[in-house]
């Protein structure tokens, strides 16, 4: 513990695991929510912005043009379920459960037990106000691919050892 606090290269964020992005191109644990963007199965021009709040599990799902998702009236829609599944792949079930404050008794959390754990509390529907900022963060995230790589050294990157340590 003392070593960790005195380390310049202490690991703070556990490494993200690679995952397929076709269905859920963006997922994050931020702003007190699990939130992200889910591609529509039927229209390649359309995406859904979905979220679940930590603690109370209030959920929201709407298109990027702010049309409410038909499936997310009474309970989690398939977009939200896909979002939880992919968050578990990227961050690990334990971290997702801890962030959302879902308690799984007597078992290792899984995507399914997290989903059931939340939906069984009959969470309410949140408004879709968060959709616009989440969508703009997704666009900002995509924009990172547009910047050309460079060869000027970045000495500060010495503080950031590789994420998926293999050895």
């Amino acid at each position: 513990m003392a070593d960790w606090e005195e380390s310049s290269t202490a690991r703070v964020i556990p490494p993200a695991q690679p995952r397929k992005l076709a269905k859920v191109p963006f997922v994050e644990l931020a702003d007190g929510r699990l939130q992200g963007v889910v591609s529509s199965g039927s229209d390649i021009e359309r995406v859904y912005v979905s979220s679940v709040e930590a603690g109370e599990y209030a959920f929201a799902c709407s298109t990027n043009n702010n049309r409410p998702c038909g499936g997310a009236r009474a309970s989690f829609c398939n977009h939200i379920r896909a979002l939880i599944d992919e968050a578990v792949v990227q961050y690990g079930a334990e971290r997702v459960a801890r962030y959302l404050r879902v308690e799984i008794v007597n078992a290792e959390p899984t995507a399914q037990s997290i989903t059931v754990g939340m939906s069984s509390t009959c969470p309410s529907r949140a408004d879709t106000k968060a959709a616009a900022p989440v969508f703009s963060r997704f666009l900002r995230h995509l924009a990172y691919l547009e910047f050309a790589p460079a060869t000027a050294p970045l000495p500060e990157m010495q503080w950031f050892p590789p994420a998926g340590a293999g050895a």
Partner: protein
Amino acid sequence: MRADLLAEPIAGLDEALGAVGAFDRALAGGLLRPQPGQAAGPAELADAVAGTPLASRVAKAAEKSAAGAASEDDLVVLAAARTALLGSVHDAIMARVDEATGRTRRSGTAPAPGEPLETNLLAAARSWLCDLARAGWQGIDHGVVSGSAQVVSAMLPNPSLRRLAALLDGFAAELAASWPGAALERIPVRRWADLWSRAMLLTEPGAAEVPAAGAATGRLLPLGVDLHEHVTAAQAQVHAVFEPADGTALSLVRASASALKPDTVVGAGVWQLLRPCMSALTAVSEGRSMDIADMPITVDGDLLWNDERARLGEPADAFATARVALPAAVAFATAPLDRHPARIAEPVFLEGYGIKEDGGGVLTFSFAGHRLAVDADRVPAAGPLTPEAVARSSACIGLLRWDAGRFSVQPLAVETTQKKKTVAAHAGAWAGGTADRAGVNAEKAAAEAVAVLRERARRLLRK
């Protein structure tokens, strides 16, 4: 290498780090309302630099900060004092490293940086960092953390601000993953104070610039690749021995490639982003030397890589380079502002060691009773170098590092014996591409991920 020297205490180190630690704890609690017991932190820093030209300015800043009234300038001064102190720690450790490796180091004077640009963005970044220091790590909330996003977004398109932008982005991501700060069970006190101080100094116009001091023409013999990565940026550094065409002394140089990335691009995907801008990564994968002509080089041995000034050369075995050329190579001194223990990454060649493994898979090399920890955590996942290979190795090319009070070695490549033949495994073997089956699959998955993101960007970003 004399491992015995690495185990001996360094005079003055504990005192210097004690003063740094006192300031770091004050920063954790926040400088706006200094907590009892933490208020002395800045004063300890001031005492530690009392015999230097910084003395009076730091003493004044410490006094203002103890009263919770530090201005932005005062906070820059405190960051500078902390940096100076860790600079001296760096120098003491490097003196020990050079003694242990028998390496000669030369220093030069960096040319003056050019006219600073974008001072408004630097001021905005500084203002955010000052808010952060006032709140402290225990006071991080969503509002404080999200304040950096706009500044970083504005900086990203400008290559001259890349250094600060990449640092702030990585730092802010850690803070965001850690809020609310009041609920944190443990705080990376040293690390965040490091990142904060470095960022503060980089907001000083011109501080981030290390201009070319000359040009290099000759042969480059790669030793290995060191990878750095946070959620939205990655950098690969090729460490190499440079053999000048004019027959002057061999030297140790680095070539870097860096890229910004979405957090879902990981593993082999990172190599794919970096590969197109630096052929030296291909040279490492193919085990070849490079011929470079008029390649700009900084005073601390960083080649400012340009593919047009380089071409792939003859096959060159990294272990032959490490055995024959490395002992004769002269190293460059670190640029003044970059002097920090975390910046130490000194290429070394090790053999004739014993290997110990504790229950948790943590490896240690031993040399006649002296132990050197193996920092296998820094070996990239997208590569063929495994802990098993390190544990069976008979020779190792590595980077000597220092963190949290001790030396360690990060393996860049190892030699093992398989069926009576010597086989080498390189951490960066996949940097330039691979035919290895596991590597090909990783490459394919990573390429698909990027293709999906580009397709999404094409449809959604251009509207």
